[in-house]
């Protein structure tokens, strides 16, 4: 199937994705706790400005403002029934901005987690999850998104449900998980485990990777975990611009544009092909990242020590993969009677 992102990936060595959505919207006056997706309808100019911020800073691809645009999340704001519509509008605004960019820019339809725990541990069934993701995907597709982009996922079950929904919507997709707990996702998945899971999907993504999590260093270690599996699929790196701080009444991430530029180079050297930021990554960071990627040739994959030396320490000792994954579970004393 031909797709603009597929074509770009086959002609370019790297692509610059976008940065933060939430952090940027706060700066435009979004009240904490309110759903950003409502602005697609009520403040479309702010959303256009958000998108233009990334495009003008040199992003080849940007995500729609639809992260929480599934029925389960919108339900918190009594708008569960509006998932498809708000997703469509978010994608329409993005299409408009991308088409007026004067160069090729990919619109990726952001699909975030449902926020519920899937069976058997939780209560959300696979069928319901697929249905919610499918509904949102149809909206994003109607609005003109080039690809679906599921992100910040913790549970492999949820990732697979999204993949299935994208197959139903017959759209190409990309997907990232958030590795924020001792190198793994909250549900315990390693980078290695994710790379393996991808190979079993009937409709594999165009690219896969990691976003958000704890800091840019940890995210790069995760990227190294992906490449260590020998995967040939394009890898996505969307790390946070440092860690959040509270300064003068608003959230500020402590990663400077210079740090994110170094992160971008390290990400490319580590094997990532689609490189962007997540929380805290503003247009000035993206500009610095673009400039660095354009002016510096690709180098060798960094060691963990080099990552620490260039952009700072990891939040945990290991990432849970390979030899380190054998942390002993508690010895069972015996078997329960039936």
């Amino acid at each position, binding site marked *: 199937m031909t797709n603009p992102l597929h074509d770009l990936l086959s002609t370019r060595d790297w692509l610059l994705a976008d940065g933060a959505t939430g952090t940027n919207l706060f700066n435009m006056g979004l009240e904490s*706790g*309110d759903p950003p997706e409502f602005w697609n309808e009520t403040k479309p100019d702010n959303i256009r400005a958000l998108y233009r911020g990334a495009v003008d800073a040199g992003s080849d691809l940007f995500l729609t403002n639809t992260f929480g645009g599934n029925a389960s999340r919108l339900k918190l704001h009594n708008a569960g029934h509006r998932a498809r519509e708000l997703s469509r509008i978010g994608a329409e605004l993005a299409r408009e901005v991308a088409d007026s960019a004067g160069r090729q820019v990919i619109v990726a339809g952001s699909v975030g987690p449902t926020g519920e725990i899937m069976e058997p541990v939780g209560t959300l069934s696979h069928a319901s999850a697929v249905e919610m993701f499918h509904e949102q995907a149809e909206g994003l597709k109607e609005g003109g998104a080039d690809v679906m982009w599921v992100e910040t996922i913790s549970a492999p079950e949820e990732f697979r449900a999204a993949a299935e929904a994208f197959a139903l919507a017959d759209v190409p997709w990309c997907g990232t998980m958030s590795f924020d707990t001792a190198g793994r996702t909250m*549900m315990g998945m390693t980078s290695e485990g994710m790379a393996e899971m991808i190979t079993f999907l009937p409709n594999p993504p165009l690219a896969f990777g990691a976003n958000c999590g704890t800091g840019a260093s940890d995210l790069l270690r995760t990227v190294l975990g992906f490449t260590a599996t020998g995967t040939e699929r394009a890898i996505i790196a969307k790390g946070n611009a440092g860690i959040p701080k509270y300064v003068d009444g608003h959230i500020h991430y402590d990663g400077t544009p210079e740090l994110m530029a170094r992160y971008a180079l390290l990400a490319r050297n580590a094997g990532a092909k689609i490189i962007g930021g997540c929380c805290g990554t503003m247009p000035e960071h993206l500009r610095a990242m673009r400039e660095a990627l354009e002016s510096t040739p690709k180098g060798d994959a960094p060691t963990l020590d080099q990552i620490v030396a260039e952009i700072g320490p990891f939040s945990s000792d290991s990432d849970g993969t390979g030899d380190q994954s054998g942390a002993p579970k*508690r010895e069972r004393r015996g078997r329960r009677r039936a």
Partner: protein
Amino acid sequence: MADEEDIILADLNDEELVEQMFDDLYDGLKEEIEESVNILLERGWQPYDILTKALVGGMTIVGNDFRDGILFVPEVLLAANAMKGGMFILKPLLAETGAPRVGKMVIGTVKGDIHDIGKNLVGMMMEGAGFEVVDLGINNAVDAYLDAIEAEQPDILGMSALLTTTMPYMKVVIDTLVEKGIRDDYIVLVGGAPLNEEFGKAIGADAYCRDAAVAVETAKTFVGRKHNQLAAG
């Protein structure tokens, strides 16, 4: 390990049974925990001892392995569910016997946030440590917190946020407590994946808790300190 002999819980002596309960909590075996709690009650154990020695002891191991990245959320949820089974039996008995109260916590996820998995874990681990927990669920606006602390008079207010878009809301709640002059009446603990200690301090919380196990330790420390202050004052 199919060649091992099956264990008959009722045949174990007290010490072995408590050890077995640690294993069963670790493995999230709810029915076995319920059975063991009933066996100990029949043997004349005080409900409070069953809670602290068996259930809290077992959940402490779970909490430590969660903190150390050996167990992850799915396993901890199963363990907590098993503990809940035991607590369901003990709760009315604890109330009857007037068992000592460690402390009380009102906990909730702030408005608009994505999910309450972390908050649920904290709630369950706190219960596991003997705290009384009032769970406000998800999507709490300032008023929901205020109403709950007014009605419940807890020692601790716990708030959780997982998204950049909702983290600042914890500050909104704390600022409101300050405005009303009641901030210092409560221990305010915050948590959530994107947070850190400095952030917790900057928004005016007493502490940031990295995970559920840390939350329990921190809560105990602060409640202990508060009681000491009251005793001294």
